[in-house]
Each structure stands twice: as C-alpha cells, then as structure tokens.
C-alpha cells in the first residue's frame, strides 16, 4: 500500500494559552490536490507550517511520504516544495540569480533555472531585480523557487493573495500543469473559485479543528449551502458571532 503523500496524525499546536491547531487528522494521497479553507485565525498557516516541518507539533506526528519529520527531516526536504504566504524574495538579486540560487539548494544547475524561467514566463525579465517585479511576477517567481527541486509534493500558503486576476489565472495554469504531471498539491486560500478549479478535495478548518472535508459538491450538500462562498461566510459569520 502506498503511503500518503502528506499525513497529520492528531497534531496539536499551542502558542501559550492559544490552541492554534487542536488535534487534526489529515491524509493526502499522492497526486491528490487539496485546498485548506477557513477564516483568518482558523489555524491554516500553523497546520501548513507543521506539514512543511517549519514548526514542530506539541502532540501528534506529521509524515511526508511515510517519513516522520522528527526523524527524517533531511530526507523529506527534497521531496517537498514550499511557497510561503508573503515571503519576500531577495529584492536586490536578479531573477535568474534567484532561481539559480534556489536550484542550487536542490543540487540543480543552470539548465533547471532556464527551464523554470520559461515555465513561469519570466524569461524576458531574467536580468531584472526581484524588487522591480510586479506582484504577479513576484508570485510566479516564488512559485518557480518552490518547484526548483521538482518536488513530488507542493505546499502553497495563499499563493494568489495580492495579485491581479490575470496573474492569478497564470498561476492557476502553472499549478494545473503540475497537477497533471502528478504533483501532490496542498494549498490554503481565501478564493473559493481557486479551490474549485485546482483541487479534488476541500478541507474546512475552524478554530484549529477540521469541520468537514470532501469534494465541493459533498460539502455543499452537507452544509446546505449554494456555494463554497456561502459556506465560508457561514463559518466566518459564526466566528464573528462568537
């Protein structure tokens, strides 16, 4: 039996008195594409950071391809690509220098960085400083850096936040290619259409717990909502009321 690409087993994370993630079980199959939805403060970023190995859970375990982060960190890092929310790429490095740098982290050379420049359509901007790129271009470069090592699993924390609709479509296209190529995707997003377009399954997170999970039609039926937006607004509304 194939091990799940990503697995969280009863993970708990506390920051002082705040319980950011309160016992989450999540399993994502190889090649599956999953969206993590929830209002601000639901624990999405903390859960993603635990899956990326950046934060250790206080309880439970996180496994990547069946390997435990606690004991196999160095083996896991090459399998996982990470695109962080609001990460700022080195502003005074040129685009090609940045990509060559990230490719080198995975033992890959110039050929790979040229390939990525073409994939994210930044070939004509290769000698521009990262700080001079538009929001959409910057996000595409961040995505290229995340897939520099041709990872089997890609974790994206709000990959299209702050970019214009055209740039969003471009990022969706790239993610679509990766998905077709069999890359496992986990993404957090506030855009319901993004979850619908890119993901096989949606996980709803609220107050550090999984509220529900399934395909979009399943969730809508169970939640009695007309759209994911409605479902999300109900969740957010409940939090505001509390």
């Amino acid at each position, binding site marked *: 039996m194939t091990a799940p690409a990503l697995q969280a087993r009863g993970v708990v994370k506390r920051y002082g008195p705040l319980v950011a993630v309160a016992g989450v079980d999540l399993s994502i199959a190889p090649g599956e594409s999953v969206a993590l939805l929830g209002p601000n403060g639901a624990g999405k970023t903390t859960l993603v950071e635990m899956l990326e190995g950046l934060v250790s859970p206080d309880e439970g375990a996180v496994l990547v391809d069946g390997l435990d982060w606690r004991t196999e960190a160095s083996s896991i*890092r090459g399998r996982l690509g990470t695109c962080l929310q609001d*990460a700022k790429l080195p502003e005074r490095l040129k685009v090609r220098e940045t990509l060559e740098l990230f490719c080198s982290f995975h033992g890959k050379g110039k050929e790979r960085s040229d390939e990525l420049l073409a994939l994210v359509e930044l070939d004509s901007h290769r000698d521009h400083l990262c700080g001079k790129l538009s929001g959409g271009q910057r996000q595409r470069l961040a995505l290229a850096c995340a897939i520099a090592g041709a990872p089997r699993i890609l974790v994206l924390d709000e990959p299209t936040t702050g970019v214009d609709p055209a740039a969003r479509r471009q990022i969706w296209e790239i993610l679509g290619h990766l998905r077709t190529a069999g890359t496992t995707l986990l993404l957090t997003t506030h855009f319901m259409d993004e979850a619908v377009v890119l993901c096989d399954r949606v996980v709803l997170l609220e107050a550090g717990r999984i509220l529900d999970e399934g395909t979009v039609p399943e969730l809508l039926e169970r939640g009695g909502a007309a759209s994911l937006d409605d479902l999300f607004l109900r969740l957010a509304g409940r939090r505001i009321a509390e």
Partner: protein
Amino acid sequence: MNRLRGTARVRALFLLSRAHVLEFVREPGVVFWAFGFPILLSWALGLAFLSPHPVRAVFLVEPSDSAAVRARLPDSALVSLRAAKGTEVLRLLRRGEASGQILLKDGSLVLRADTTSQEGATARILVERATLAAAPPVRLEPPAATAGGYADFLFPGMLALGLLNGCAWGIGFGLMDLRLRKLLRLFAATPLPRLDILLSVAFARAVTLPVESLLLWGFGALVFGVSIHGSVATFLLCAASSVAAFAGIAFLAASRAEQSQAAYGIINALTIPMTICSGVFFAWTRFPHWLHPVVGALPLTLAVDALRAVSSEGAGLVQVLPRIAGLWAWGLVCGALGLRWFRWR
C-alpha cells in the same frame, strides 16, 4: 534529491554567500554607511585633534581688570585673554570658546577653571607657565616619530568599531532581516543544511569586512601616517579574534527577534554603549575605578586594547594573548547560546 552533499553543497553555500554580498553591494545606502562613513568620521576626528597649530588657551577677564591682568599675563603664543562680563562669561565657557576665567582678587591672579578635565588641567599649566616670567623657557623640538599621536590612538579603535558594526549589522541584523522577510524559513525548507544558511551570512561578511577594514586603515596610513609598530600577523590575529567575538554576539542577538523595531533596538543596544565606553575615542580608564572591571571585560574594549597594543605599542603575541582568549570566549559562548535559541521563523 534528498540531501545536499559534496560539490553540490559547496556550490549552494557559495551562491547563497554571493547572494548576500550582491544584496549588500547593490544597496548604495549600505555601502556608504559601511565604507564611507567610518572614513569620514575618522577624517573629521583626525582633523579636529591633529590640528597643526599649537595649543592656545583663551581666558576670560573682567573688562575692568583687563589692563591689570594683561600686565602680569601678556598675550603669548600659548595664552590669549578676552574681555567679557556677566552672562557673556557663562555663555562663552559653556560653548567651549574659553578654557576658564582669570580674576584679580586682593592683588593676586585667580584661575577659575575645572581642572578635573584635561583641558582645565592644561589651562592651569599654561597660566602658571606664562606667569613664571623668570623661569627659563622650554626648548621645543618636533617629535621623532608620529607614534603617540591621536591618530595612532584613534585608528585601532575605529577599526575595532568597524568590525563590531560590520558583524552587528551584517550578521545580526542581516539574520533578523532574513527572518522578517521570511527568507530564513524559505531557505530552511530546502535541502540546504541549516548550518550552511548561517555560515553563508558569516562568509558574506568575511568578504566585505576585510575590504572595509583595509580602506579605513589605508586611509589612516595615507592621511595621518598611522602604522603598525608590532607584528602584522599578531595584528591580524587580534582582528580575526575580534570578528569571532562580534560574530558570536551578533548571532546571539539575532536568535529571537521577530519584529523590525526589536531588530533595530537590539543592534543599537549592542553597539552604542560599547562605542561610548570601550575606549574607541578616549581612554576607557577615565571612567570611575569601580566600572573598570566591567568596561575592561567588554568585547569591544578587549578588541580595541589588543589592536592598539599591537599597532601603537608594538606589543607581542604573549602580551595580547589574554585579550585574544577573552574575545574567543565571548564568541564561543554567545555563538553556542545563539545556536541553541535560534528561531527559524
């Protein structure tokens, strides 16, 4: 690829170190503060304290006493009198435009000056010398060498201060900035070993710091004739030990900060007190005796004293060894604590 090994690891480390250097040199503001400002400051201090004109003290006299005082203390190459009264006296003294006030009381000259300061003590000597008309004049000769001048005192201090600032801002603030921009997390999520991420910041400084230091010392040598009277190898060892201490401290300072205000505060708290206390601009022995054990053990004090001992006094390795050991102790202890507490996110 899971683990980065061999030449691939060296290449990644090289490219990351190069990236830090490129980010540094492509920022004109940073380049000015790192390379230009220490030279400008040293030049200004050198000009102020290495004036080619001999010391001439100005003393204030009451206009009504002026003639009587001038009769006993005529203007000379060393002493000049200026008539002033009332609030004008206080104003001129506060501005540092006069060294003291000379009064005539019961037919005697009275010098009113703060003789606990170096300038006051000099003023007293100058007045006493000028009033001793019968004493034989002192014969003056130019010094045999420039050694002992303020530039010889200043430049080792400025060099040590440059190394401290280079490490505090380059390594300490650099790491905090990487954390604040989430780049530290991004790098840490790749197969590049975390130790290499930290080393890359240090290697980048290992490129820029020698350039900064050479420019400063070269300027001192060219303009003010500063030279190293001891062994150059010992001098370099002192500089390297200073960098080890400052790098460890900077690393510890950078280990936890999560906000930019905290980052600036930490670096300023680290550098400003030592800049004032550690004998860069004046001898730290001028502080009260009870403070000497504390000030003397500060890493910048150890660095300044070691560099100055070799360059100005020609001290050998054995004489500076305790200070070198102190510097390494600072570096290793702080570095180990920083590594233990370091936060990647």
